[in-house]
């Protein structure tokens, strides 16, 4: 409950941005804010895994892509020619398929977005379990490399399979009708409601994670971060908690992938790329690793700038540079820099000998 209250100011900011954009006639900003919110959803999940449980993942773009690609493929590829297949007719009778017409007026039969979303997220969770059990036994660099390998596999699979559109990706992804009158889509008329859908989802995710890290589980995770063995000796099931956190963050990534794909109306292989994973890790680091609010803020700000094209063709280079600078100068995140304190030190040097430690 207390956590619910703590995100209320954020809700006010979200509404404030909407009014500001509408007052200044810059509603187009809401599009990037919507997309940033979905990326931030992935990033806060990754933040719990990296910052709290202390397990790095360089493969989270892979989970995002599993969510996005599966929901895109299932909701676009027509099953008309398989209509006689027992599985397809069962799905149809279970109400999980949608009939319609494509651009050229031909009859199509696709999986409904709700069903596709559930399949996509569950698949991501299952893959996270299968990958996580062996990989989470590794530590440090080895874990980073193993998850990196996973990310590369997903990228290559997306690029190679015709089902996933090879280098073109999948386009023409239909709208995701959440409730009658409420749908995730890129239509201009739906821009405002999509802005609120994305931020609503992000706020829910934030409340869940804030509660999680403030609980017994959160304490256990931080214990694991400190020392696997000492946590084990306290009766913390370290491998279980690591796996659960890994799966949880994968689910967050997959949900972000599903929603953003419906919002964009498509997905391409670059979403699965290794540089995307590096970017997510960089953003969590800038936010201060074990700092959910920092991750959220940086997730929004940096993705927004990137999506607005501020970094131009140096986009990936900028995130690489950010990662280097953060590691060198602010390993505890940019919020920990305590700029006022630093300035005071610079101006009034000598007086504050004791405060050397930051």
């Amino acid at each position, binding site marked *: 409950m207390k956590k619910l209250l703590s995100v209320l100011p954020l809700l006010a900011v979200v509404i404030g941005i909407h009014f500001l954009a509408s007052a200044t006639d810059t509603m187009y900003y809401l599009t990037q804010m919507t997309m940033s919110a979905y990326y931030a959803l992935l990033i806060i999940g990754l933040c719990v895994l990296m910052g709290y449980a202390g397990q790095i993942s360089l493969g989270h773009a892979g989970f995002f892509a599993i969510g996005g690609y599966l929901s895109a493929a299932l909701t676009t590829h027509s099953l008309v020619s398989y209509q006689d297949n027992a599985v397809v007719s069962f799905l149809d009778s279970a109400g999980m398929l949608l009939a319609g017409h494509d651009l050229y007026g031909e009859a199509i039969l696709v999986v409904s977005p709700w069903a596709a979303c559930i399949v996509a997220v569950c698949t991501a969770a299952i893959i996270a379990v299968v990958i996580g059990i062996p990989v989470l036994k590794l530590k440090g660099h080895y874990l980073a490399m193993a998850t990196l390998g996973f990310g590369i596999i997903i990228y290559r699979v997306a690029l190679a399979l015709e089902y996933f559109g090879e280098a073109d990706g999948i386009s023409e992804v239909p709208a995701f009708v959440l409730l009658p009158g409420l749908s995730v889509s890129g239509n201009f008329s739906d821009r405002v409601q999509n802005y609120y859908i994305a931020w609503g989802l992000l706020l829910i995710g934030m409340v869940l994670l804030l509660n999680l890290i403030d609980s017994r589980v959160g*304490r*256990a995770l931080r*214990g694991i971060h400190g020392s696997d063995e000492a*946590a084990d000796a*306290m009766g913390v099931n370290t491998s279980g908690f690591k796996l659960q956190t890994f799966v949880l963050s994968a689910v967050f990534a997959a949900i972000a992938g599903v929603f953003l794909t419906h919002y964009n109306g498509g997905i391409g292989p670059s979403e699965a790329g290794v540089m995307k994973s590096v970017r997510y890790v960089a953003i969590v680091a800038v936010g201060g690793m074990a700092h959910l609010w920092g991750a959220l803020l940086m997730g929004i700000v940096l993705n927004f700038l990137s999506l607005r094209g501020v970094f131009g063709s140096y986009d990936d280079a900028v995130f690489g540079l950010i990662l280097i600078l953060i590691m060198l100068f602010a390993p505890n995140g940019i919020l920990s820099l305590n700029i006022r304190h630093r300035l005071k030190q610079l101006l009034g040097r000598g007086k504050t000998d004791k405060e050397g430690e930051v």
Partner: protein
Amino acid sequence: MLKIRNLASGYGKIKVLKNISMHVNPGEIVTIIGANGAGKTTLLSTIAGLVKANSGEAEFKGTNILKTKAAAIPGLGCVMVPEGRQVFATMTVEENLLLGGHVLQKEGNRFLSRLMDYQYELFPILRDRRDQLAGTLSGGEQQMLAMGRALMSKPSLVMMDEPSTGLAPLIVKEIFQIIVRLRDEGNTVLLVEQNAKAALGIADRGYVLETGKVILQGPADDLLANQDVQRAYLGREKND
């Protein structure tokens, strides 16, 4: 309470413990002394499930703990205060204590906070430092925190690995007084120490470990009086 028979264990090809048999009865302090590399820490780690046993039996309150996962052993009531303290440096004193009570969460928060008050009474300095990060504590304070953290799981057996390491003599004395107090309040302690004199001074019984074997055992007073022990571990010559 704890019964170990013919236990052998080690790390991969390196066999550290060979054929150890020992037991701990409820309400006593049992100490294991021995030189560096005798296998004292390996013995505790094997009991705690952190090191896999090669053969033998170990039973804690009727449960075969060699087949139990490390994380499940504190739940049985057997908890370790690890060597070098290993407090969670980036967490506060209070969070460390609460994490120690991880296995008791079912009992509810009020139960845990009452248990925490008990630790604060045992170690008043921890109360003053409750909101401080554990990494900023002194060595003695960290040792007290590691003990308090272990006690937060209301164990029936506390295993302590070298609690005197790196501490000033005065602090060591204080720590050992607390161990005695724990015993007097009905706790059972298995104490591994290099500081043989201090350990035998407070223990009820002792085992002397040498190269992975128990070479001597008996009441602590007998061991203190034993000439071999005196020569090897207490630094006294025969005619001292």
